[in-house]
């Protein structure tokens, strides 16, 4: 029984970690700008494409990975400065539409460069290797992802709670104007937020595409949406919420993918219902349910404005 469930569980945990790394970008940007950054999934995809081209140029891995992360950070920074900063005092709908525009721009750019062909993702030594755990064969990346995710999340939480820039981020997320009165340059703080979110999405993309092998211009859409649901599920604006939500979604999704086999092996059924089809639907059904039952999510704060 365990042998049947374990592969799905392991993949679920890994995918959950990858969603978590994307979801943090959504939740942090929302926390500070109250913006659903629809371009975030595409930044994740672009990080994947960058890796393809940079590795193809023959650069060694220890340069390629930092370079990919650096460029991803730069893309996040530039997007914010060009597409969102000029709309700082515009209605929230305008900036959201701008985000959708950025999303399509990135996709079309990549379409133009790649010609719309699936690019095969480079094999990264060590994390692409196969490994056997409790008799289950999987890739190293499956085991590394949750560990790396947790390490990065802990580092991020420490940054936010213990450093000066972290304090500024919390202040800005609460009150732009008063933060300015403290001498905080809010644009810098917002840039830092986008940079952190993009770098984490970059790390996520390395892990994710190592698992899925190919990148195409629409590759960011589904993981982006899933991560967004994870952020809403966990309570948008909350980092622990996004991480927990991402792991729950990743695990559930993959268990559903294997549900037919699991049920069969458990002797509960002897026909296949094709339940795996519903793994994506599950995530979005979860979104609808959470929005109805607890719109603030698992860890979301209730916003009570004192007048």
């Amino acid at each position: 029984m365990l042998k049947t469930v374990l592969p799905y569980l392991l993949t679920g945990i890994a995918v959950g970690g990858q969603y978590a790394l994307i979801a943090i970008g959504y939740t942090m940007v929302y926390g500070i700008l109250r913006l659903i950054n629809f371009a975030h999934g595409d930044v994740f995809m672009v990080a994947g494409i960058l890796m393809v081209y940079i590795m193809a140029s023959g650069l060694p891995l220890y340069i390629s990975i930092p370079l990919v992360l650096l460029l991803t950070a730069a893309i996040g920074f530039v997007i914010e400065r060009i597409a969102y900063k000029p709309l700082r005092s515009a209605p929230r709908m305008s900036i959201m539409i701008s985000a959708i525009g950025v999303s399509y721009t990135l996709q079309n750019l990549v379409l133009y460069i790649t010609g719309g062909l699936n690019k095969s993702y480079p094999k990264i030594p060590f994390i692409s290797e196969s490994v056997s755990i409790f008799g289950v064969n999987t890739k190293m990346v499956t085991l590394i992802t949750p560990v790396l995710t947790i390490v990065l999340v802990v580092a991020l939480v420490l940054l936010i709670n213990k450093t000066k820039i972290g304090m500024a981020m919390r202040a800005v997320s609460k009150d732009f104007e008063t933060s300015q009165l403290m001498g905080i340059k809010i644009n810098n703080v917002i840039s830092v937020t986008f940079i952190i979110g993009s770098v984490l999405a970059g790390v996520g993309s390395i892990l994710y595409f190592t698992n899925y092998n190919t990148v195409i211009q629409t590759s960011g859409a589904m993981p982006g949406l899933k991560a967004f649901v994870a952020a809403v599920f966990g309570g948008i604006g909350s980092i622990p919420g996004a991480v927990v939500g991402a792991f729950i979604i990743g695990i559930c999704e993959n268990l559903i993918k294997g549900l037919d086999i699991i049920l069969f092996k458990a002797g509960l059924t002897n026909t296949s219902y094709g339940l795996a089809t519903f793994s994506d639907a599950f995530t979005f059904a979860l979104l609808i349910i959470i929005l109805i039952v607890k719109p603030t999510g698992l860890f979301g704060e209730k916003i009570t404005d004192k007048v």
Partner: protein
Amino acid sequence: MSMLEVRDLIVSYGGIEALKGISFDVEEGNIVTLIGANGAGKSTTLRSITGIVPIQSGSITFMGEDITRMDTQKIVSKGIALVPEGRRVFSNLTVLENLRIGAYLRKDKADIQKDIDYIYSLFPRLKERNWQLAGTLSGGEQQMLAVGRAMMTRPKLIMMDEPSLGLAPLVVKDIFSIIKTLKETGITVLLIEQNANAALHAADIGYVMETGNITLTGTGAELLASEDVQAAYLGKSSK
């Protein structure tokens, strides 16, 4: 030369002139108050001095330097602090963090700690609540924190926007004694109040604002004695 000189300041919101060309001075070491009814433009005046509200025309000079249209962050670094209306403490930060964030631009770590200790000696209640989130404080405590936070910027001029608003009478008394303490420590205070009586008692100089104009000026005592002020703001009959 005055510490702060405001000249012919015009500020508009969406086509409506909130300030119609006001001029006033704040002398170093004084408590200066702007009094007036709701919508007279008092808050707008303070907000335009800090650069939060865009200025249409006119000039603002601080310590001999033109600060008109300077970035808020730069203005703060020149030594102007604003204690905003409604206190606006960072409710998601602890009391200590709220004080630390006031010192955001400062690099002198040792002095920052000294200043925190000094503020805690002024407001022992805050020290007790050091690790509490500021959102859990009472209104009076939040006001103390907002003043402490402003003091952490090491300002030469503190501007206070309705510090007594919504506070119990006893707490209001505390707030005004704090304002006097600020003056004693050499900080200049520009105070906005609806509580005209208390403000004028504390103030060296007062200005009366009405719908975007300054209509009267004088020492605190003169304005208290003025029949117009008494009738309009102190609730006394002009007979």
